[in-house]
């Protein structure tokens, strides 16, 4: 409303000035309206900002929209060139097909189990480790810290074979333990990032808080449990969410360690089903083309739980960033 009023006064003012034939004044007024006093408060700037936002937002949303709309298409729609964005009818068949084939509720339950337990153990362990790095001084601390960051840089391909052999020796393959054990010991998926997040956060807690608790007779472990942890709730939430999402989406390691077991991440399960399904039909046949839509429906079903979780926890994901030290300075 305020902006409309400004536009209105702008027009009435210019008309008044035109009547008085003060053209120089009009020029100034135009300039102030479009460019503003310091450019950042003018109309042009606003147009520029929102234009950029909308075009970049389109780039980001494009694949999701593509996935959503195409998953509803029937075979006729996919072949028809004139149907590009909006399918001719809402067709739930694709979803039904995938839903039944992978037994979606059970698959989803398994995928959640597979993500929640490693994520929980990673959260607990990285909180403890992060606290140790942040609050205490000990010899070799810098070296250990650098090594911790180095574990993030080393590609999993290097360590994969020895880990694989180790797991098969101790019969960890095909069970949840293959993910939980490394997570408990702080070596889980992207473990270094989580330790860094907690490290940043715990460093920000003032020392005096700890000291006053110690004067009252608290030990270091009590300080950690009773003071540091309650303060770190936003970090805990963000670490858990990140860890959950990453474990949920994980395909590389789980494809290797969990091969042949009932526990499979949802992306892998959908992938498996699609591969089985496509291999029945010959290359280039009609049924294969239909598969495109089924595949996309499977993918939508895969990310739907994540989208729902994201929708509810969005606040934590994006607003607690400045409170938690994701920056890793």
């Amino acid at each position, binding site marked *: 409303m305020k902006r409309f009023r400004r536009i209105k006064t702008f027009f009435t003012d210019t008309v008044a000035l035109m009547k008085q034939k003060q053209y120089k004044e009009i020029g100034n007024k135009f300039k102030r309206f479009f460019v503003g006093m310091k450019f950042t408060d003018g109309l042009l700037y606003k147009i520029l900002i929102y234009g950029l936002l909308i075009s970049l937002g389109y780039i980001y949303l494009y694949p999701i929209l593509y996935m959503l709309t195409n998953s509803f298409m029937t075979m006729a729609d996919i072949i028809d060139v004139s149907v590009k964005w909006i399918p001719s009818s809402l067709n739930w068949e694709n979803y039904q097909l995938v839903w039944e084939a992978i037994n979606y509720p059970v698959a989803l339950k398994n995928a959640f189990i597979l993500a929640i337990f490693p994520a929980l153990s990673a959260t607990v362990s990285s909180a*403890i480790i992060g606290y*140790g790095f942040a609050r205490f001084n000990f010899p070799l601390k810098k070296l250990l810290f650098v090594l*911790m960051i180095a574990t993030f840089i080393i590609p999993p391909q290097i360590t994969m074979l020895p880990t694989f052999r180790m797991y098969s020796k101790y019969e960890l393959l095909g069970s949840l333990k293959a993910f939980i054990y490394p997570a408990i*010991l702080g070596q889980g998926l992207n473990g270094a990032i989580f330790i860094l997040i907690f490290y940043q956060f715990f460093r920000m807690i003032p020392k005096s808080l700890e000291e006053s608790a110690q004067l009252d007779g608290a030990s270091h472990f009590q300080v950690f449990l009773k003071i540091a942890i309650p303060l770190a709730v936003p970090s805990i939430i963000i670490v858990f969410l990140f860890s959950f999402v990453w474990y949920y989406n994980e395909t590389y390691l789980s494809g290797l360690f969990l091969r042949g077991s009932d526990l499979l991440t949802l992306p892998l399960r959908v992938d498996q089903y699609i591969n089985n399904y496509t291999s029945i039909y010959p290359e280039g046949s009609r049924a294969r083309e239909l598969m495109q839509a089924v595949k996309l429906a499977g993918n939508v079903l895969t990310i739907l739980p994540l989208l729902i979780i994201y929708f509810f926890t969005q606040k934590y994901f*994006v607003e607690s960033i400045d409170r938690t030290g994701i920056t890793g300075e």
Partner: protein
Amino acid sequence: MKRFLNKVGGFFKKQLPRIAKKVKTFTVQNTPRELIFFRIIKFRKSNRGRQAMIGYSFILIWIIGFLIFSLYPVFYSLYLSLFKVRLDGADIQMTFEAFNNFKAAFVLDPYFVEILLSYILNTIVNVPVVIVFALIIAMLINQDIKGKGFWRTVFFLPVIISSGPIIGELIDQGATTLPSIEDYGFVNLILDNIGSFLATPIQNLLETILLVLWFSGIQILILLAGLQKIDRSIYEASMIDGASPWESFWKITLPSIMPLISVSVIYTVVSMSVFSLNEVIIYIRTIMLGESTIGTLITGYGYSAALAWIYFFVMVGIILLFIGLLNIKSLNLKNVREMRRRRRSRI
């Protein structure tokens, strides 16, 4: 007899402190000033020593995990890369090959060098694009705009969704290319005017621009957090001194988030390199899982370990290259001269 017994007794008397010393090696000693584990690890009972001990007990789980799940596999794979490894059911046959695996990667292997080169070029082109876009988006979100929450949600979406199979699906379906880019003859224009050496990565970039941009989710977060930490009053002061927004971007914003840009460069390179659809990764994996035959060297675990190590060093090289480029500015001549002068005056 007595003499003999005396001798024996004397011998043991002499040995006793030594044995005691040896026994001490395996104990925990609690002297008034120190707490000694196995005679090697000593913690003074000062404040600092106690702090060190408690600090270690906090990170103990990490140290154990690091030894088991990171250090041991790293060394083991380095060891494997020197061998020709064949799996016969449960047991392994290994023949020592010294550095032949590494040599074979460059000499015998028909694909690896080509894939590696294209990976290097693509990464070098893509990383700056990701960083620049992440910076632009972070600065846009940091503005006073309407519907901040909505825009943040949109730009952070990729982190939630991007995962191997789904992105792979989208690539298959052609959903990662913006249709509008292909419709214009832009790509052809580039191909006609620049040599293919440079044009191919650029063409790749344009074709996978969505994919590339989807990598910038976390980087946006990192840079946004950095932008929010800059004190507003600095901008106000600079404005009073007559700085334009353009100038204050180069003189205030960029220098203050420079360390974060380095962080996000490292993050980008790493996440792109370990991304499960990366060509090199796929190649290493197929070699690792492929049956190893006796005759040829370029198959099997040993060879794939060697490839993974080469890949790792290339990756570190790229990271160092970018970090070096970012720091070039601060190393200009004036600073060097100043440093030298200071050092001389100290002496």
